[in-house]
């Protein structure tokens, strides 16, 4: 361990801005950003699947509220949603006495709630579109086999819709990573927050922000290639033969 830190200090020798300490801030920021984005995406995904199915329900009183939810969350800036939850959570009746209060008092959880609700709304619409685009023949074939509505949903419609939604969902993941930068606005030390801190401390905008931009770029490419790999695996049957 000592070896690594001396080696590190040697490399950084003479560098006024990127010291072991500031790199530590960036590292903590990377951890916070990853946690925030990963958790909100996973919870959002879990919420979005049933919502997408119900969004296509025959009953108006099921379909309309979900449509309203996605319309509002997709039509307003995430920053506003974050402000409403971050500043508004205090005013929910009895929240300060509840067991959740120690969590909600920190900026992380209001941000997580805002991001989750936001990505769930977008993902619901992506999946809903994919479900709607299911080929009629697949549904007819499932019916001909005597499948019930639930079995058909589970075995035919959803798997095929997931595959079709994959490219759009990959974009949503990248969008979420980029949108997470606004967490720094509510005092969270995410990647962007670390960059703002370094900027403010050393008055070095180019170094601070170009470095963080490079990290985001690497993350974006990693996500991009991961989804390309998934598409290649899961959409292999759609590739041209030659």
């Amino acid at each position, binding site marked *: 361990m000592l070896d690594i830190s001396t080696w590190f200090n040697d490399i950084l020798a003479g560098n006024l801005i990127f010291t072991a300490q500031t790199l530590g801030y960036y590292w903590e920021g990377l951890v916070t950003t990853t946690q925030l984005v990963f958790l909100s995406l996973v919870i959002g995904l879990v919420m979005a699947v049933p919502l997408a199915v119900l969004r296509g329900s025959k009953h108006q009183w099921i379909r309309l509220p979900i449509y309203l939810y996605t*319309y*509002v969350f997709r*039509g*307003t*800036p*995430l*920053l*506003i*949603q974050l*402000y*409403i939850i971050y*500043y*508004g959570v205090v*005013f929910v009746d009895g929240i300060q006495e509840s067991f959740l209060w120690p969590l909600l008092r920190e900026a992380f959880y209001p941000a997580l709630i805002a991001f989750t609700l936001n990505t769930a709304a977008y993902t619901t619409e992506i999946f809903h579109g994919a479900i709607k685009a299911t080929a009629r023949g697949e549904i007819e074939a499932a019916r001909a086999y005597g499948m019930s509505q639930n079995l058909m949903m589970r075995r035919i419609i959803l798997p095929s819709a997931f595959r079709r939604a994959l490219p759009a969902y990959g974009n949503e993941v990248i969008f979420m*990573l*980029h*949108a*997470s*930068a*606004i967490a*720094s*606005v509510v005092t969270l030390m995410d990647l*962007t927050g670390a*960059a*703002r801190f370094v*900027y403010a401390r050393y*008055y070095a*905008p*180019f170094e601070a*922000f*170009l470095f*963080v*931009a490079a990290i*985001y*770029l690497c993350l*974006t*490419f990693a996500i991009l290639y991961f989804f390309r790999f998934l598409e290649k695996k899961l959409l292999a049957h759609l590739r041209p033969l030659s």
Partner: protein
Amino acid sequence: MLDLQGYGPRLLEGAGVTIQLALLSLALALVLGLVTASAKMSRNRLVHATATVYTTLIRGVPDLVLMMLLFFGGQMGVNVISDMLYDNFGIDYYISFNAFAAGVLTIGFIFGAYMGETFRGAFMAVDNGQIEAGRAYGMNNWLLFRRIRFPQMMRHALPGLSNNWMVLLKTTALVSVIGLTDMVRVAAEASRATHEPFVFLLPVAAAYLVIASVSEWIFARLQKRYNIGFGGH
């Protein structure tokens, strides 16, 4: 009734800033997008590579980070230039850094990359026979662009454009973070001062929904206009 506690006029002013900012950045993004799309379709490798680097870099980095980079970096750059003018030429001229202009430039610059991708796809979707027919009529490149490629391309580009515009509109909220007084900033300040976040933030959210709905209506009409002669839609 909604009591805005005297913040009403400032909120309206902020809404004005949001709309101006969005429209001006849209204009810049459209111009940059057309240039980028042409560059991407160019046979010159250097031009092509420059456009590819531009769109890839911009789309790989969060808007807020780009905004801070250009805004804080631009501020510093301007200071350096005015210092240099003073030191070398004795000109005592302070160049002020306009936050609004910086916002327009940044958002326009970011969305130029997205528009470029949309336009490129749309240009490529135009039937080659149309262009050959135009050539056969002896049209020069500019006339071909104005009469055939552009109107035909718009038909394919409109859904993407409408999408980009909606994202752009919501991105304008970020300028409140770097110090521009748009409606989000006024609402956030008022919430902090009065401890009544819902009174200010919910109407602003509703304002975004109204702008989005109006633009949806406008885009639907444009779509109809550019689809004349293609039936359906």
